């Protein structure tokens, strides 16, 4: 190592304490009075990462944005949940059925579902995201048209199902039949895409807590999805967010619903194992 590099490192060390202004906060998230787990011990499969604990993206938002998520009356994402509750009972497609025809009461039948997705579907022999499962029910059981993968109605239906698991710990399986897909997702997570050569880890593992322009970088967790973003004033899906992040590296993105994003979703979900399901969350 040359002398100049040493000087630069010394300069970095001196600068380090000043960076704490951008650290995540220590506030407590309650939703309608129920306390959420927003910081959790590192899952065993992340031991080779640079993280020491996992954290919800909620800690990286400002107080006003945080407050909007604490009460369903203030959470704009809940309007979409109401729409989806109506869609749940609406008969669509050639089989003359609604979601309720098979699953009855969403509060009971969908409790715990969000927390374990993406997961292996034995019959189909594939890893399924919640969106894939919703569309599978629509096409196979209802004879209805699938929702567009990252559309508003899809995000709304995901939000309705997610609310039924709120406060439960994310608990996706990473072994057995999903192990290959999980490995593939991990590889994508650490690949430096695009002309800017940045991986998910470049921003969300190496630099969470730091500012990139006006954005306070979080760990890029998905326990809060779908997220209502103030920036585009709608509910956003996981794959919609992935697409935006890959695009921002000046890369050719993958498509929502692609095998790459399904694998990445499984892997990123597993990085949040232990955090509460908090969707629909509010972000900027």
């Amino acid at each position: 190592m040359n002398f100049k590099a040493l000087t630069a490192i010394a300069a970095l060390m001196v600068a380090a304490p000043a960076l704490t202004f951008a650290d995540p906060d220590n506030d407590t998230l309650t939703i309608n009075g129920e306390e959420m787990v927003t910081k959790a011990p590192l899952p065993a499969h992340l031991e080779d990462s640079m993280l020491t604990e996992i954290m919800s993206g909620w800690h990286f938002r400002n107080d006003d944005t945080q407050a909007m998520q604490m009460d369903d009356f203030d959470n704009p994402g809940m309007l979409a949940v109401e729409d989806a509750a109506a869609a749940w009972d609406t008969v669509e497609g050639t089989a003359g059925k609604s979601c309720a025809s098979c699953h009855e009461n969403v509060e009971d039948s969908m409790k715990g579902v969000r927390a374990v997705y993406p997961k292996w579907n034995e019959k189909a022999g594939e890893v399924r995201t919640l969106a894939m499962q919703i569309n599978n029910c629509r096409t196979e059981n209802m004879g209805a048209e699938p929702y567009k993968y990252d559309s508003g109605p899809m995000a709304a239906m995901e939000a309705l199902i997610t609310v039924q698991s709120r406060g439960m710990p994310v608990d996706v399986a990473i072994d057995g039949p999903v192990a290959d897909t999980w490995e593939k997702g991990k590889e994508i997570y650490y690949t430096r895409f695009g002309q800017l050569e940045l991986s998910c880890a470049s921003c969300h593992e190496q630099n969470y807590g730091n500012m990139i322009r006006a954005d306070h970088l979080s760990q890029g967790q998905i326990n809060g999805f779908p997220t209502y973003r103030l920036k585009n004033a709608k509910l956003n899906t996981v794959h919609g967010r992935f697409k935006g992040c890959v695009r921002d590296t000046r890369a050719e993105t993958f498509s929502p619903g692609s095998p790459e994003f399904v694998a990445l979703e499984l892997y990123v979900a597993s990085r949040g194992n232990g955090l509460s399901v908090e969707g629909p969350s509010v972000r900027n």
Partner: protein
Amino acid sequence: MKFATLTLAASLIAGAAAADVVAPGDVKMDEYGAVAESLTGQPGNAAEGEKVMTTRSLGNCVACHQVTALEYAPFHGNVGPSLDGVGDRWNEAELRGIVVNAKKTYDGTVMPSYYRANVDGYIRPGNAYTGKAADDSFGPLLTAQQIEDVVAFLSTLKE
């Protein structure tokens, strides 16, 4: 007819100017990542470099770096170190090398390479920020002139 003549003239001028410019593939970098020769054969313009550093669609350097001299421009990030005093820490050749391709100075750094043009060296290179695949318009993030301008500005950052 007139239009065609004009375009031809313009491309001749561009061609003449380009002759003195070191192409991204021809940059000579030493083993520590420094680039001794100016990419344009001429000194850069610090005032222009300042614009490149603060403009989002150009260098956007302040997205990652705090610079006290540029405090008038909003939203400085801290993914990279503060650039205050960087003109004392590095000489011109070293600064040029860092802006051209910081990965040679700092192994594995997240700082993008601003003067590396070959599409083949990237994974899924895109067409700017469209999310689509790169096409024939793919080129380095900054021009040789912009690199020299940025280097000129960085050299002014002394304590």
